[in-house]
């Protein structure tokens, strides 16, 4: 039974991810006074791509053609660790939050290799930039997560969320800092404005798009899907760690349904914030991203210190 719910949760994750992307696009269009496409447009795009014949460069090796599957699987595995609608599922015990970061690293490793595989300047540029940004983002992210895990004294996400739920609504300065740090990291890691612009193909600025420039057909669909999944995953992390209320603790249909509704509401709200931020802020130069990320690291560090100085029970 538990395993069934776990599989259901992963399926929901995978299925809902394009919807979130569509919703963000919709909000952004409204904010910019444009006519919005339907929220289901990403599904249509993915379907269209899977039906097309993929064109692969003659130079490509197996790394290029297998990488999309590896990236997609690694992202799905990362999603399986994160509680979406219910806590205490068996999948969340199989790996903790550090392993989740490891899955992201796995996906990124192959994405960067795929970028280098064709031997064009764009691919190399994308890989180099992606690895730079991610290596700066990783310590900031772990710093934010360590604050949380030290409060709950576990690195298992499910137990950590239960801990926050049991504590009730307590205003912790460390959580405020950690939330801010994690948000900045999430923006950098999912390639949103101001770090990267998912909607542009301008060679001077692109990062993620430069690596996947050569992809087409089902390969492109998988990579797009994986990045939508990653965006949703970060959203769920922020929503469920810092505002876990509403998540199902028992496995009956009512609680699960309620959990699903609540998380969709939370994500929709987060998406609105993201759209507003992306509309207001301009993209920054590549070599200012380090300042952005070191600020995130600093926030994480402050969160950690305030946990140690103010909150730790001695």
């Amino acid at each position: 039974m538990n395993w069934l719910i776990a599989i259901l949760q992963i399926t929901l994750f995978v299925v809902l991810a394009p919807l979130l992307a569509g919703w963000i696009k919709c909000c952004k269009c409204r904010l910019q006074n444009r006519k919005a496409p339907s929220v289901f447009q990403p599904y249509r795009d993915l379907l269209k791509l899977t039906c097309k014949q993929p064109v692969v460069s003659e130079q490509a090796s197996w790394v290029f053609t297998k990488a999309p599957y590896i990236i997609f699987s690694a992202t799905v595995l990362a999603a399986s660790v994160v509680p979406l609608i219910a806590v205490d599922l068996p999948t969340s015990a199989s790996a903790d939050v550090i392993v989740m970061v490891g899955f992201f690293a796995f996906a990124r490793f192959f994405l960067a290799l795929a970028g280098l595989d064709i031997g064009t300047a764009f691919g190399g540029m994308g890989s180099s930039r992606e690895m730079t940004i991610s290596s700066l983002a990783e310590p900031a992210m772990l710093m934010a997560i360590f604050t949380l895990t030290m409060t709950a004294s576990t690195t298992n996400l499910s137990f950590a969320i239960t801990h926050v739920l049991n504590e009730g609504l307590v205003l912790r300065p460390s959580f405020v800092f950690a939330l801010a740090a994690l948000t900045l990291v999430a923006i950098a890691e999912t390639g949103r404005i101001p770090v990267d612009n998912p909607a542009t193909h301008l060679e001077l600025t692109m990062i993620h798009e430069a690596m996947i420039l050569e992809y087409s057909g089902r390969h492109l669909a998988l990579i797009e899907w994986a990045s939508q999944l990653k965006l949703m995953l970060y959203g769920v992390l922020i929503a469920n760690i810092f505002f876990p209320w509403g998540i199902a603790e028992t496995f009956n249909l009512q609680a699960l349904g309620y959990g699903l509704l609540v998380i969709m509401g939370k994500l929709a709200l987060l998406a609105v914030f993201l759209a507003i931020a992306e509309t207001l802020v301009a993209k920054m130069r590549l070599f200012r991203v380090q300042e952005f990320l070191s600020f995130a690291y600093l926030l994480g560090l402050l969160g950690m210190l305030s946990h140690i100085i103010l909150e730790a029970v001695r």
Partner: protein
Amino acid sequence: MILVLAYSAVLLSFFSGLLGLMMNQRLYILKFSQYWFKKIPKDSERYQSLIAPCLEEKHFPFLLRKAVFVLLGLSGVFAILAGLSVLIGKEVVTDQLSLGLPWLPWHVRFDCLSGFFFLIIGIAVSSVSLYGPGYVNSYDESQHPFAILGLFTGLFVAGMLLVLLADDAFFFMIAWELMSVASYFLVAFQHENAANRSAAFIYLLMAEVGALAIILGFGVLAGFSDGFTFDALRKADLSTTWASIAFMWALLGFGMKAGIVPVHVWLPEAHPVAPSHISALMSGVMLKVALYGLIRFCFDLLGDVHWQWGVVLLILGTVSALGGILYAMMQTNLKRLLAYSSVENIGIIFMVLGLSMIFMANGHPQLAALGLLAVLFHAFNHALFKNLLFLGAGIIHHQTHQLNIDMMGGLIKKMPKTSMLFLIGCMSISSLPLFNGFVSEWLAFQTALQVDVLDNGVLRSLIPVAAAALALTAALAAACFVKVFGLIFLGLPRSHHCEKAHEIQDKGMLAGSSLLAGLCFLFGIFPSLIINLLNSVAGQLLGETLPNDAALSWLWLAPVSINHASYSPPLVLIGALIAGCVSFWYLRRSPSTVIRRAETWDCGFGGLTHRMQYSSSAFTMPFRRIFAKVWIIDEQIDKDMQGAMDQDVAAVHYHLRIQDHSWPRLYHPIERGVNNVAKLVGRIQTGNIRVYLGYSFVTLIIMLWMVS
């Protein structure tokens, strides 16, 4: 029984070295065998028909090389058996050999800690001896005689094994020196190149300074005890100050061998110039022997560790880890890059060892055991994947005749098997899940996160920062090895040699690497195979194993308790396979979507060449800009101008030189100081015989005065 296994491992490696010496003695062996055949006429014809073909000039060198490596491999197998049997039996075996000084015979002690390092050496030596015969075939016998290589390889391995067996300071130092000096000759093997000679000299110099420091460390201990056996040293009663002084000497000595910043400079010089299978042994195993020395010295001989030592190790380790990987990233010579990456891994190991000491000193032996487990497991993993990468680098060098990664590319199609093995090494060293490197880093993070139990507020905020530095190191390592694999194996070939390269034909070389790659994967999926063995090491050394709640089954890995953190690599593997297969089969369902091959998109200009790809310096440019202060960067762009007004650029030359800060900051001042002192001493050396006679006379007078 266990000791017999251990001794046979040592003796076999000795014999393999001695057998190597026979390389040039073919005629003597021929004469000897003929003489012997005459002595025993019975069956002689049959033996002769067996042995005589072996001694022919054509076959003899080939067979002898094989035999040397077979003996070496057997020594490795015996080392593995000895290590495993002592780890499983959890025994401590002692013995005395009637060698050495008259009043101090060689004491031998074989316990779980030694056994574990025996296991590491055994695995590395076995894989190297599979790899070796194919690799050394490419050497020209007249220029690089195999006798030297074989002899010193055998002595080197024997020295390392003896260090682990030693139970008194005297024997320890003899074995240590055997290891250092033998490896010096291996570094200097290709001595026709001046750079190699100077690298070997730096190596010898630093090895000897390190050995002096270790002797001083033992000396401090021996000053407070009544003998040189480790048993006597264990009983020594030291004040905190003297214990700290002894620790500092040991740290300097063993740290020099292990290659922590700032005494790492010999490592990137010496490792690239040795033959690849020797660099694999040096980087993968010899550094671990230094780690063994430090662990033995601190946890076993000194006994009560102080948390301040832990902090020193933590800081040095963090600096080494970050510095090592940042320097590694900037290298273009593959073996040099791998050597710097060893500095990084040793840094990680020292960092976690520091954590373990801090927990031990603060009265949390179970957490100290967890830290020690992470240390030893990472040492084991590093031996596996670094060996694998060095052997891979050897294969690449063998096939393309170069080590500059800016001149490679596209090898994945030419060398599919090597590329697969190298990819596994890269993934392990980048600590990606499902591979062994990840598990030890995960354990390191788990140790760091237990910091809440400490009372000291400074430590509690320092350790998470170190953990974040560990995260940065891991991410940078991933970037570095994406660069390595991407530039060597992917893209278009950047040189003629790479275009013409083909897969290695020698089965042994592939088998040696495959063995290591297989173990990397195996221990990534079933880490508890090793961790259970390590638990007994911690039990013997610290008197404490992992907490009782810890679950260490083949399926689960929960080092503290299941509520704290758990990781199940087999489940993750199954999940990954399911997700991968489902997406793969689902998307393959329609026959109209078969992959179509086409030209690479060139923006409509046409003519993409290999020069348009990202190079090593281009790939690392963002890092160079962000961490600019870490290196001494010398970057020049020269433009050749032409045309009427000198305004058209005809050619652009780009020079980039990256230097290590430790040379101008630390070593050049020392070098100048030594030179100045030498000059002062030189003043009294006038070269005039009368002055020298005067010196002798004055010395004589002073001595007489002292005696009377």
